[in-house]
């Protein structure tokens, strides 16, 4: 086998990753190939240089400070009191949720009732004839725009208009 085929495996050999037959095969080749032996030597020296790369050996005080800083970094930040906290009694925590629920139900019921009845109409008697006429004209415009066709208020308005034109009916 040519040297090139062995060269790619010399690093594994130097690292001690080869065993058994593979290792024996490389060693057999190295026994009679000076070029590959030199390569093995070069790889060993290179790895030795890397392995001896120094790193600082900090004193114990460095590590104590290191840990202190880390503790501060992971410590939970002190929580500023929130508005909610002022109104929260720990053993009553379920109560606010219940109160909100009841309030919501109440609001929905009121809203439905209000929307089915519509806003209260002004008392006709309290409006002057001029005001009633102006109101009539405004609603005529809206009617022409087909905006209020479906609104029950219009039915009320027919009554208002007839009263404005005919004058208040006398009670019989």
């Amino acid at each position, binding site marked *: 086998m040519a040297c090139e085929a062995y060269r790619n495996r010399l*690093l594994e050999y130097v690292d001690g990753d080869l065993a058994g037959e593979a290792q024996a095969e490389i060693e057999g080749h190295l026994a009679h190939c000076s070029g590959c032996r030199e390569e093995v030597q*070069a790889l060993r020296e290179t790895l030795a*240089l890397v392995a001896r790369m120094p790193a600082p050996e900090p004193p114990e005080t460095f590590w104590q400070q*290191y840990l202190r800083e880390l503790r501060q970094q992971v410590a939970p930040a002190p929580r500023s009191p929130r508005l909610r906290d002022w109104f929260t009694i720990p053993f009553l925590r379920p109560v606010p949720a219940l109160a909100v629920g009841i309030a919501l139900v109440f609001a929905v019921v009121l809203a439905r009732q209000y929307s089915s009845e519509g806003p209260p109409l002004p008392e006709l008697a309290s409006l002057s004839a001029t005001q009633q006429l102006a109101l009539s004209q405004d609603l005529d415009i809206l009617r022409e725009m087909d905006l209020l066709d479906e609104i029950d208020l219009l039915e009320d308005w027919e009554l208002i208009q007839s009263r404005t034109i005919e004058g208040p009916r006398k009670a019989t």
Partner: protein
Amino acid sequence: MKEADRALVSRLRQGDQTAFDTLVQQHQKDLFRLAYRMTGNAEDAKDLSQEAFVRAYRGLGTFDGRSRLSTWLYRITVNLCISHLRQRRPSDGEEIPETHADLSAKPLDKLEEREVYRAVGDAVAQLPPQQQAALLLRVHHGLPYREIAEILETAEGTVRVNYFHAVAKLRAQLKGLREDV
């Protein structure tokens, strides 16, 4: 995950402060040295290794326990170092500062040993980050390819290739230094 790791993680998740101290004390030197060898700067190494512990602590929820705790910590540290190196390294076209990696052409017998290792450090620093990490984790931390692959989140074959190329480059670059030490 080892039983000791499992117990430590469990204590950490319960907010046990002494468990955090234990985690740091068990791994601080390895992470610091790895960060130092990758960045070549002690201050950066301190900051990056500390940041790795903080991220590990805050990310305990994402640790699935399939790898060893040390593997996970190495992974966080390497990722931080690689990110740091990419920010720090000059972009294309920018002048590369002179290093001692080219000293193989000079009369090496007069170099002090300290300068030799500085040259080695510079040569390692010029490797692509993935090659650098593979080399350092293999040579300095004695990790098997399988674990390095887990740390670098890549295939074992890729780690072998990166390691091979790293050694080949250093072998050529440090040719003059090898006989000097």
